[in-house]
Every structure is written in C-alpha cells, then in structure tokens.
C-alpha cells in the first residue's frame, strides 16, 4: 500500500494524537488537519475546572506546540469541510475549494445537546451557556466573575464540575437534575450520593427529580418555576445536558451512521479508506463484543492512535478498557470498565480521605469499578482493577474488600 496524503477532519485530541502517531512511523506522508477553531488541538478537561478557577491559562492547553507541528510537517487548514465526496475521495471546504485525500480520518467529536424553551422564549434559550470549547469556557468564566447565583441544568460530569468551580470561586450553584441521582447514566448510586453531599457541604444546592416548568427573565434575574412548585431565582444559567456525535456533515451520505459513525475494531467505517476515531465513532469493542461510543480523554487519545496505526496497515484491534475521571473540588472520581452488569457489588475502603471504590463483579470476574476519594487516592486500585479485568481471572471477594491486600498481587497469581 502506498499512501500519499491523509486528511483529518476535526482538530481535537484524537486528531492530534493520530497525526503524531502517523509521523512516528512515516516521515513522508502528507498529513492535513482541517480545523474549525482558532486554536491548535488542546486539552478540554481544564475548561470546566482549572481554566475557570484561574489555575491554568488557556494558552497552556495545547497538546503539542506550533513548532512541533511545523517541524513534523503536519499541516493545518483553518477551514470547515462542507462536503465529503467519498467516490472521488475529495473534501469540499467552505470556500468551495477541492481537497483530495488518499485516506480520510474523521474526528469531528461530539456536540452539545441544547435546551429549547420555544419561540416565545428564544432570548432565554439563547442566553444559556454550554461548554464545549475554549470560547465557551471563557464566556462561562466571565459569567461567573460577574454574577453570584447560577442554575446548572443537568447533574452530569460537566454540570457538576462547573458547579464545583462556581463554589470554589465563592459563588453558589443550584444543580437541577431530572433523574433520581447525579451522573445517573454511568455512576453507582452510593458515589452519586457522596458527590451530592460534598457539593451541599460546599454551599451548592442539588435538586434531584426536578424539572423546569417555566423560566422568566426580568431585570436580569431568571425566575425558574420547578415541578415541586418552588421557584428559584438566579443570575445566570449554564446547561450540561449531554452530547451527541457530531455527524452533521455526513447526513444523507452513504456513510453508515447510528449513534455516531459506525466502525469496526480497526476504526474502519463503511466507506473504503475512511476511518473514524474519538467521540464521533460508534466502534466495535472486541472485549465486550458490542458497539460502543465513548466520550473521554483517554479514549479520544488512544482511539486516535489506534486509527493512525490501522491507516498505516498495522491491523491492530482497539481493545482499551473504558476509563474516565471527573475532578470536583479536591475529589477525584474514576470509573473503569462497565458498572451495569454484575451479580456482586463489593466496597473497598470506607472514607474519602483514603478513597472508596465499588467493584462490580460477575461470576467472580471484575466487570468494572468506580471510586471516589481525595485526589490520587483511588487511581492505583482503579487502574489495577482494569488490568485484572482484562486478564479475566477469578477474584477472591475478601481480597477486594481488604484494603491491606495489594490488588497487584491478584495479577501475579
């Protein structure tokens, strides 16, 4: 196979690491990344946390420097792609220019779901902030600096991380969540409760099973009527209600889309020479024998690397066990594997100072684990849980329960 040019649509983490990986193996291939943003690929986790609380500058978020991309001859084109012609292997940019490719990698990421309060309240819908990129984070930071009380619509990771930043800056957030618990989609109830109490202790208010009935904006104050007949008055509204794969460009094309771009374990899409990686891909996971779409830092990076290797013909299936984290206040929450299919739930540790982890076990095998603790206190055991899970060894419940037993021992049997 002789490749000449790889084009990458989207300039997030998956794109940056794919380009870097390709260059490690091939110094000659043309690599072009189509970037809609005015920034080089950057880290997004700090956007809800350290960038807002002034611990990290926006300029410090790039994965690789401009000099790196220049010296590695990785080209950026600062345009959006308006159409992909799969038959003629050509991209058409917003200025109607044709950009041919030999191989295409799609890393368009995901985009925020948005609230809509109807045409009569378009001004309210438009005034709500969401977090996706640096510009969004800057707007949220500015809003926190200039207001005192906030409604956060959605009690998921992003909403809670922003709420945590708000409290750390001495302001107050009311988190409005429709579900029975925070982070309901993926996190065990016990941990959701710990997070909820922690926010309340720091001055935020968590409202579960709560819906918004109506919103009124008068004299710069939002009056939010809730389903429990109470009314909330806040200065500002920020929403984090989930995201979806950013596949707009491929609607009505031959590309197979189903909750993201469908790929196999080699990041290959339904179109020849077209690959997809990161948030946008609904990929086949051989370990779990199912399709999945993930939105996490580690996945974006590793999936980008995997796509690069497969573009270069290495035929390596992507098998990483899903792992994600959320940082709120001085707590670090981590989840590995899948925590929704188990016959035993085992607790290891009993306080936040040293970390609490719930192991989800099925037929004596670890399926997943989710833990929370003061920064640094759950990472090692969560990581080991992932390694043990991969080996599919039977585990002794007493070893899991007993924090004195090193989990690394279970790997060496």
């Amino acid at each position: 196979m002789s490749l000449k040019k790889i084009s990458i649509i989207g300039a997030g983490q998956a794109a940056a690491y794919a380009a870097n990986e390709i260059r490690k193996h091939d110094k000659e291939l043309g690599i072009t990344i189509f970037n809609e943003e005015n920034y080089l690929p950057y880290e997004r986790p700090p956007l809800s946390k350290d960038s807002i609380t002034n611990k990290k500058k926006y300029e410090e978020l790039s994965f690789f420097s401009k000099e790196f991309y220049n010296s590695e001859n990785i080209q950026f084109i600062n345009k959006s792609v308006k159409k992909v012609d799969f038959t003629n292997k050509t991209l058409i940019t917003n200025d109607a220019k044709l950009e041919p490719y030999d191989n295409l990698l799609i890393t368009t990421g995901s985009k925020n779901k948005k609230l809509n309060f109807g045409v009569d309240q378009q001004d309210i819908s438009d005034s709500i902030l969401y977090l996706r990129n640096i510009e969004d984070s800057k707007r949220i930071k500015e809003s926190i600096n200039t207001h005192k009380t906030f409604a956060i619509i959605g009690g998921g990771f992003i909403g809670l991380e922003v709420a945590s930043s708000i409290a750390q800056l001495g302001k107050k957030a009311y988190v409005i969540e429709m579900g029975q618990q925070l982070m309901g989609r993926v996190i065990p109830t016990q941990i959701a409760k710990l997070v909820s109490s922690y926010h309340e202790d720091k001055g935020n208010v968590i409202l579960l099973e709560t819906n918004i009935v109506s919103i009124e904006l008068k004299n710069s104050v939002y009056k939010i009527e809730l389903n429990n007949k109470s009314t909330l008055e806040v200065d500002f509204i920020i929403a984090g209600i989930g995201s979806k794969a950013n596949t707009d460009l491929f609607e009505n094309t031959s590309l197979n889309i189903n909750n993201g771009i469908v790929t196999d374990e080699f990041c290959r899409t339904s179109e020849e020479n077209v690959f997809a990686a990161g948030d946008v891909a609904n990929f086949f996971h051989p370990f779990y024998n199912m399709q999945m779409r993930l939105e996490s830092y580690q996945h974006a990076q590793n999936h980008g690397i995997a796509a690069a290797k497969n573009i270069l013909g290495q035929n390596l299936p992507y098998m990483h066990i899903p792992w994600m984290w959320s940082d709120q206040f001085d707590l670090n929450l981590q989840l590995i594997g899948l925590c929704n299919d188990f016959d035993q739930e085992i607790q290891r540790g009993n306080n936040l100072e040293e970390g609490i982890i719930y192991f989800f076990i099925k037929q004596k095998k670890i399926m997943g684990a989710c833990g929370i603790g003061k920064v640094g206190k759950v990472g090692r055991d969560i990581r080991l849980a992932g390694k043990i899970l991969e080996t599919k060894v039977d585990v002794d419940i007493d070893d899991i329960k007993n924090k004195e037993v090193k989990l690394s021992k279970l790997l060496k049997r």
Partner: protein
Amino acid sequence: MSEINEGWLEVSEEAGIEVEDIVRFDHDNKTYCIYRLEDGYYATDGLCTHETVHLEDGLVIDDEIECPMHQGIFKIKTGEAISPPACVDLKTYPVKVDNGKIFIKI
C-alpha cells in the same frame, strides 16, 4: 531523618520494601518518591508535573510510574514524561542503599 556525609539524606529502612513499592520522602518543603525496581532503587520528584498529586499513590509498571489522577506516565529512571496529560519531565535524584538503609541525594 539523620543527615550523613556528602549530602545524602536517609529515607528509610530497606526492610519490607518490595519491588514496585514506592516510598514517599518529604524534606525541606519538598516531596520525593523513591521506587524499588527489579534492578535497584530510583528517585524522582514526588508530585506529578501535570497537577498537584502525590505519585506515591501511583502505579509502578516495569520502570514507569503512572499518576493516580489522570494516568500521565513517566519513566522512573530518567523522569521523562511519556504519556499525557503529563508533558513536563520529573527531576530524578541519586539513591543508594547503605547498611540496610536507603539514602537520597537532593
């Protein structure tokens, strides 16, 4: 901690420290990690260069230390940051074992 000649600082007894164990050592408002690997002892700064988290809670895999917070990875022997989010290298320090005791030179 008793200081001895040539600027070496005593960290701890060697007894009970297994391969892949990490010993944290605090001195003069700084924190360090001493690692026992298959071929001896090594030392680096004790905090991850990405965020303020103690690497003593991290996981040693072969000759690499993985941060417990965001899985940034460093080479223990050189301090090199090899996997993000870590991108700044750790400083490394000489370690020696003398008479069953571990010493670090800062």
